[in-house]
């Protein structure tokens, strides 16, 4: 007997919509089993994990701080993946955006003017976009697999940052520790209120709205969707696949770069060897969890942010290892992909020998 995946003749629209919810439900159920196996009260653990982060103003703010970069990167990736363009290197584009943007306060530490912040943001966007253009160019020109090139460029960006932050860009008064000077004044993004939430959160919302409009209402969005589903049909319609590849990469790179500079000029306030705790990779989960739909990405980003906060909370309150966060996120991605696959395909038992 062999198991074989067979394409379903009809896709249920309802199920396609319900699939992420189903995946979340299954994750919660499996999570509860995991907590029981670890000897914890599953109800309490899940409450602390997913509900408690939303019960105080401070933790809601922190969820926003965490969700903003995930959403920014996630919407860009959603556009890419819709067009069948596989940008796996958002983490590198984020790093490059952070690095290029942060060059301003590092080289001109005394320059204080609103222009500084504007320039930092623009450079962050440009750095991410141009860095993302590299795998796009390699794909268009040499048909190089963009999954590999974009992923490997992550390490290039991180090592470049590493080299700078341990050398030329190191804080001269920092006792050789690998971090830049602390940014201040117009070199940091103004906070909203007195917490850590800053205007980067607004960028995320604006990006969601613009991308949703672009994908739903413009020719460019239509072009991306057509090229994604059927490149041949797209070329008959006069759409250029290569142009779409470049556009998608540069758009998602720009958004990742913006997220990067917002992290550095926001919560960090300085350049450090690690700009993000893996936002660029987590955003891949966010994009899929959000059904590659900008609005969906928004909610998915918030959910993932809650899972980070919850993971920390269960550590503090119940003494559950931080590994549970990673297990949760892994289960979530796995189950989404599994649900998606099973909605589009069915499993058939085939007897061999024929």
């Amino acid at each position, binding site marked *: 007997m062999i198991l074989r995946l067979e394409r379903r003749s009809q896709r249920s629209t309802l199920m396609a919509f319900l699939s992420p919810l189903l995946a979340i439900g299954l994750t919660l159920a499996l999570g509860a089993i995991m907590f029981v196996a670890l000897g914890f009260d599953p109800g*309490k653990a899940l409450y602390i994990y997913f509900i408690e982060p939303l019960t105080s103003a401070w933790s809601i703010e922190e969820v926003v701080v965490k969700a903003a970069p995930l959403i920014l990167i996630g919407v860009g990736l959603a556009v890419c993946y819709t067009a069948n363009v596989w940008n796996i290197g958002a983490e590198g584009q984020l790093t490059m955006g952070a690095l290029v943007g942060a060059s301003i306060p590092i080289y001109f530490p005394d320059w204080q003017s609103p222009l500084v912040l504007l320039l930092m943001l623009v450079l962050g966007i440009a750095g991410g976009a141009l860095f993302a253009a590299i795998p796009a160019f390699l794909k268009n020109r040499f048909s190089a697999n963009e999954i590999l090139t974009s992923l490997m460029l992550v390490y290039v960006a991180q090592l470049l940052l*590493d080299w700078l932050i341990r050398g030329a860009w190191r804080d001269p008064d920092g*006792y050789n*520790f690998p971090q830049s000077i602390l940014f201040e004044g117009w070199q940091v993004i103004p906070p909203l209120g007195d917490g*850590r939430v800053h205007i980067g959160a607004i960028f995320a919302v604006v990006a969601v709205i613009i991308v949703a409009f672009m994908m739903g209402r413009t020719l460019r969005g239509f072009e991306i969707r057509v090229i994604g589903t059927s490149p041949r049909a797209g070329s008959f319609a006069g759409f250029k696949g290569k142009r779409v590849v470049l556009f998608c990469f540069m758009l998602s790179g720009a958004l990742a770069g913006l997220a990067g500079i917002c992290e550095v000029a926001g919560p*960090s*306030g300085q350049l450090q060897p690690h700009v993000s705790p893996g936002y660029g990779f987590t955003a891949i989960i966010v994009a899929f969890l959000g059904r590659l739909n900008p609005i969906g990405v928004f909610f998915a980003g918030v959910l993932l942010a809650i899972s980070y906060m919850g993971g920390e909370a269960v550590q503090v309150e119940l003494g559950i*290892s931080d590994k549970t966060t990673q297990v949760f996120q892994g289960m979530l991605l796995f189950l989404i992909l599994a649900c998606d696959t099973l909605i589009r395909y069915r499993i058939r038992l085939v007897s061999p020998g024929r």
Partner: protein
Amino acid sequence: MKKLIGMVALALAMTFAAGTASAADKLKVGFIYIGPIGDHGWTYAHDQGRLMIEEALGDQVETVYVENVPEGPDAERAIERLARDGAGLIFTTSFGYMDPTIKVAKRFPDVKFEHATGYKQSENVASYNARFHEGRYVIGQIAAQMSESGIAGYIASFPIPEVVMGINAFILGAQTINPDFKLKVVWVNTWFDPGKEADAAKVLIGQGADIITQHTDSTAPLQIAEEEGVLGFGQASDMIHFAPKAQLTAIIDEWGPYYVERAQAILDGTWETANSWTGMSAGTVVMAPYTNMPDDVAAMAADTAAKIASGELNPFAGPVYKQDGTLAVPEGEVMDDGTLAGINWYVQGVDDTLPE
């Protein structure tokens, strides 16, 4: 179904209410860890200190911790979470938590913070560190006695003064036995990455080192030493179980007494900011049993450790020459703590250039 959910929610709410009420009477002590408790090195040693607080102060305290907190924007949130969670005393146990600790401390003036290995203090932020370099002087002497190739390999994390002074103390110790002793250094740029640390150990052994020592937190280098049949030293805690044939001794961090003392000070209302830097004399730095070496070497090492503890011997007693040959500490003097705490140059004999 709805009713059931409602009841569960109510039950949960009540457990929480009960939880917070009893917590109010106790001092909550929080810890932020850079690695996992299971690293059997740096974080493990701090966690032993946490357990000692629980043991010593019993019902008066409760402790919480967050492990694997990266040095970056997440650190500030993790620290603030503990402060909001009602912790009255918070230990942040890695250098990179310094600025986040200072930031959070400003927002929580009533909470006391203790930051390990940093140099910034404030009203409610104290710094503490241990003179690990005293132990490194001892293991340098052992290394020079036990090495056949005359080359030791040193796996280093970041070129900050704490690490640089350890390397210097090691080679100064070794030079008292063998003036031509060589030390090769590999910078792995991480505190905890068993894979990277293991690779570095292999490279150093390949370059002729038959003694491996480390300023990183995992047991990996020592395990490689065991596999390759060379010798090494445990770091931060006794790692003899990971390398029964390779470990000569280990420099053990004993944070417990300091942690208990500081928690007690909060209970007594006598806590004040401070900059504590104690070593063998205070029992903060302890040598593990001397193993896998002849008795005379063990006796020499024990003697050196005793002399350092009594103050008779200072690892940085002159003459100390910088790598370029200039005299840093003249004969008859010892390096003062201020210079030592900011040291950013190698002494003579280190076969490496300090990353700039």
